[in-house]
């Protein structure tokens, strides 16, 4: 019974925790600009994240090590600094976007400028990361994030997608000169879903909860069912944007615009449901990002770490949390809109994916860590292909997008 409850909780939190500022931004803009033309990218990235989450949990449960400590142990400190640097650069931008997303969500409810609310959101993340136990951080925002399922009700209430939307699934409406935008959104979609911070957070979580080989079933079901169904939230936003925003010539350049689709379906209640969903998903992701970086650094350098320890017992781990939040505050001073920041962060993440994930694939094929639980050949090939696509699309689209001044 206890195992069944754990599996149910794991699945539910995976569904609720799937979205974040990056996925909301990419899905909203994808639907508004290209109809259903980027659904394939969401499905591809979902396959990748299902495989990665399953691998991460399997690695932590069997080897009893976290990802960061295993990289340091297997490849040495000099190599470890490479994925660490890429992680810190990409995730600091993403953290700023997540906190900005929280601020915008509160702003949509209160009407107060999100610039004023940004420090409030930072304090909220800090207080939770500082004092809340791991189980609360893992489950609390994710359960609240189940509000995203109301997006499906929104699609039904609007009468379902129009028939003329269907051809955009295989024939994306790309205007002349719009290919750079399309490629940029592919990269952002892949980077938003296949976020390496999940690896550090999930493997650390598995150690925090003392997973063993008996946890492999829970891990597999959570990865496949939870993450598999989690992408429904992204797909629902794509559909809503394509159905409501696109015919009105809106491109979902701001987060509030995406909520107008829910407002059309349910009035002010729908708009509020969107704001709550945005807050919950960004809050959960901000906590995961800030903890993932702190876990990564503490485990890589062999410091004491655990969210369940008092700050004084893991002082340097907690110091990294504070410093990383300060970096986010500094980035926010540039005044860039959180949605644009989330898109940029997601594309940078896609660019860095080979650096972040290739060492992991090496570890997943090492019998010293995994015994007979190493990866099969098919999984390796699938992951390498997805990493290659994400990298090529990101390296092509980023400079084109910067040159054209788009975003």
């Amino acid at each position, binding site marked *: 019974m206890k195992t069944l409850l754990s599996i149910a909780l794991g699945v539910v939190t995976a569904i609720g925790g799937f979205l974040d500022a990056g996925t909301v931004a990419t899905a909203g803009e994808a639907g508004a600009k290209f109809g259903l033309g980027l659904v394939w990218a969401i499905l591809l990235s979902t396959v990748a994240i299902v495989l990665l989450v399953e691998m991460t949990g399997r690695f932590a449960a069997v080897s009893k090590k976290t990802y960061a400590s295993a990289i340091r142990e297997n490849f040495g400190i000099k190599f470890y600094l490479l994925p660490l640097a890429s992680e810190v650069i990409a995730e600091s931008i993403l953290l700023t976007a997540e906190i900005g997303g929280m601020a*915008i969500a509160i*702003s*949509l*409810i*209160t*009407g*107060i*400028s*999100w*610039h004023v609310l940004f420090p409030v959101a930072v304090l909220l993340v800090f207080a939770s990361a500082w004092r809340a136990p791991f189980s609360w951080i893992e489950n609390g925002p994710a359960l609240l994030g189940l509000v995203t399922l109301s997006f499906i009700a929104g699609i039904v209430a609007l009468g379902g997608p129009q028939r003329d939307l269907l051809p955009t699934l295989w024939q994306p409406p790309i*205007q*002349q*000169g*719009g*290919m*750079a935008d399309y*490629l940029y959104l592919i990269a952002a979609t892949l980077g938003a879903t296949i976020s390496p911070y999940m690896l550090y957070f999930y493997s650390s979580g598995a150690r925090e909860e003392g997973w063993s080989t008996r946890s492999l079933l829970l891990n597999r079901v959570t990865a496949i069912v939870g993450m598999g169904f989690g992408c429904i939230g992204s797909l629902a936003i794509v559909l809503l944007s394509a159905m409501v925003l696109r015919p*009105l*010539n*809106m*491109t979902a*350049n*701001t*987060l*509030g*615009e995406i*909520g*107008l689709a829910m*407002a*059309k379906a349910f*009035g*002010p209640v*729908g*708009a*509020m449901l969107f*704001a709550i969903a945005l807050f919950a998903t960004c809050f959960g992701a901000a906590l995961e990002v800030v903890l993932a970086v702190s876990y990564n650094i503490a485990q890589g350098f062999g410091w004491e770490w655990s969210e369940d320890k008092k700050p004084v017992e893991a002082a340097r781990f907690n110091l990294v949390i504070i410093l990383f939040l300060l970096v986010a505050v500094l980035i926010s001073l540039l*005044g860039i*809109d959180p949605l644009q920041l989330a898109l940029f962060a997601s594309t940078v993440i896609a660019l860095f994916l080979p650096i972040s994930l290739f060492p992991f694939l090496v570890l997943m094929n090492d019998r010293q860590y995994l015994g007979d639980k190493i990866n099969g050949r098919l999984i390796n090939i699938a992951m390498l292909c997805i990493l290659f696509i994400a990298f*090529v699309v990101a*390296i*092509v689209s980023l*400079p*084109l997008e910067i*040159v*054209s*001044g*788009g975003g």
Partner: protein
Amino acid sequence: MLVVALLCTGCQFVQSAFANTAGNAGAALAAASTTLTYAHSGKITDAYAASSFINFQSELDGLDQKLPSTQGAPSGHAIQRLLDLYKTAIRAVDAPCLTASCDWRGQVAALDRASKAFLEASNS
């Protein structure tokens, strides 16, 4: 090599800076118009509308300074027409009429006119 080749032919993939800026402005103006209409038809709260307009402001602010010097911008009458429409529309964005006592329909019409013109300019 593939990446270099793609970047070398990049001009076929990207819009001019003017088309991009005008397209984004047209979309933001359309969003502002829809937001104002939704606010007056009770689909969103005043707080939601006010918060959205803060973002539209930062997106559209200073466009009249930037647009004429943007690469690919048309000259003469065409750009002047866009700037005139922008000036009327930005007044609605800066001070949206969220109560029934002012001319919100006039603001929606101004936003729609400007949005249409900017979107047409970006596609031409």
